[in-house]
């Protein structure tokens, strides 16, 4: 079974990060939030694997 990757996995991280930030340029707070929600759903669907998704939902929670 595949595991959730929590080590660096994106080649050109700075480049990706910039693209992500730029996607929000000029959007109102509400549109930006909606954009994030759509992006999240698209990524989740791409992953598909229910165990990975659960692991990710957990990993994103703030550690006590």
């Amino acid at each position: 079974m595949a595991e959730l990757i929590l080590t660096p996995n994106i080649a050109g991280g700075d480049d990706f990060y910039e693209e992500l930030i730029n996607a929000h340029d000029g959007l109102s707070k509400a549109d930006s939030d909606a954009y994030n929600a759509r992006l999240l759903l698209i990524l989740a669907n791409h992953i598909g694997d229910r165990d990975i998704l659960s692991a990710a939902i957990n990993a994103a929670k703030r550690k006590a």
Partner: protein
Amino acid sequence: MFDDRYTLAYRLYPYERHADQDKDTPVRHPVVVMGGGPIGIATAVDLGQQGIPVVVLDDHEGVGMGSRAICFAKRCLEIADRYGAAKPMVEKGVVWNIGKVFHKDGQVFDFNLLPEEGHEFPAFINMQQPYFESFMIERAFELQKQGAPIQIRGKNRVDNVVVKDDHVVIEVMTPDGPYTLEADWLIGADGASSPLRTMLGYDFTGKVFQDSFLIADIKMKNDNFPTERWFWFEPSHGSGASTLLHKQPDDVWRVDFQIGWDIDRKEEMKEENIRRRLDAFLGDDVEYEMVWSSIYTFQCKRMESFRHGPVLFAGDAAHQVSPFGARGANSGMQDVDNLGWKLGMVINGQAPESLLDSYNSERVHGAEENILNSTRSTDFITPKSEMSHLLRNAVLELSEHYEFARPLVNSGRLSVPCVYDGSSLNSADALIGGPARTRPGAPCPDAPLADGFLLPKLGGQFTLLAINAEAPEALTEDGITANVLSLNSSDDKTGALAARYLGEAKSAVYLIRPDQHVAARREAYDENLFRAALKRATGKE
């Protein structure tokens, strides 16, 4: 005094004084059913068909006006068919397959239920609840005429119940005053606000949704609204946070507006205000007549246990769901399906009383599944936090452009019967390569045969279904007989039987319960193993 709490659509069982009312000592009946709604009447028909005397006490004299349920699912119709009442329902009901989902101004997508071929009954029909109830009652009367021991007593209100060790004492109020009855078994089918639950002090817990729905059934001749299910999220006509439009027979449409929590019920119920919403929704130029309207708040609740000694709860009295997904009456019919044969066998001394505990565990399992599904739909339709609203709208927006998001849109998941996985009545699955959908605990799917459909042949008793396998004519174990239905490939022109019951196996023998759920299956007949399975399925293990 004896006033109606609601207006009747059909007065089918007017009050008649019964000899029981003039007896000095209370008359004891094997089974009394409290409540003559769809679930109480179905219970009476089930028991009556088995020849078990049953008395239904209802505080009204027939079927209430309000439509409430409109969507009746295939399994519900299959059960009604076992009771001999499904044919007129299918004739009356409208069949629909196309659904459309709208968000704000525009349509985001449409879907076709594409029902699987090879079933006698459609996936769903739409029909006003009073029709459903009156077809059931007419069937009860028909059975009565054939000698079935069914009594339905109108304007017989149960005012108090005392539970003894092995029976109950029932105080009944009538227009002629009170009388007392006794019953070995009492079925509480007295609806969501069950007075019986209150009398006996049982809790009904769960979740109340903080939203109200205005439901209007309207009559119009209008070809612009086809026989489809249309659901709007945040419609731009602004007369509700969501709106549902659904066709019923007799040119009647159900319109369902989500109107929020803090509302003035009396104001909202004024015809002019309902018409204002309808006009904004349909357009000013559309002519219609108002048939019925009501305001509901929805909840998902259940009793912790559906059996308390000689008292058994069924239908809305035992569990209540929000209507998204049409699981109320549909699941109540599954309660009756499950309870009828068990109670029958216990009363006839063919099975131990403990068999009734499996009614509780199996139907609690069903209720949990229904509550889970309808809670999820309600949360999608009426999101409770800002973030859940945001995500909901993101799903809707994406579903317009990308197919992947469409299955996440949840405007109600249509009712399917539950599989009694893990039930104590099941024997371990021994059919290697057998389809998952017919594993022990599952309801039997229908299949077309050379001469009709499979389910009617299973009837309402234990059956050994042998496919491409040798089997005796019948198997009797401790007073219970399973008749054998032998089929082979020549009965299966379409291949549906093999696909649904064999999978990769070459042959199979199934032990099927009277409620048409699978109890056991294996590749070949084995007398000892099927004897054991039959014992297990009747609570003798």
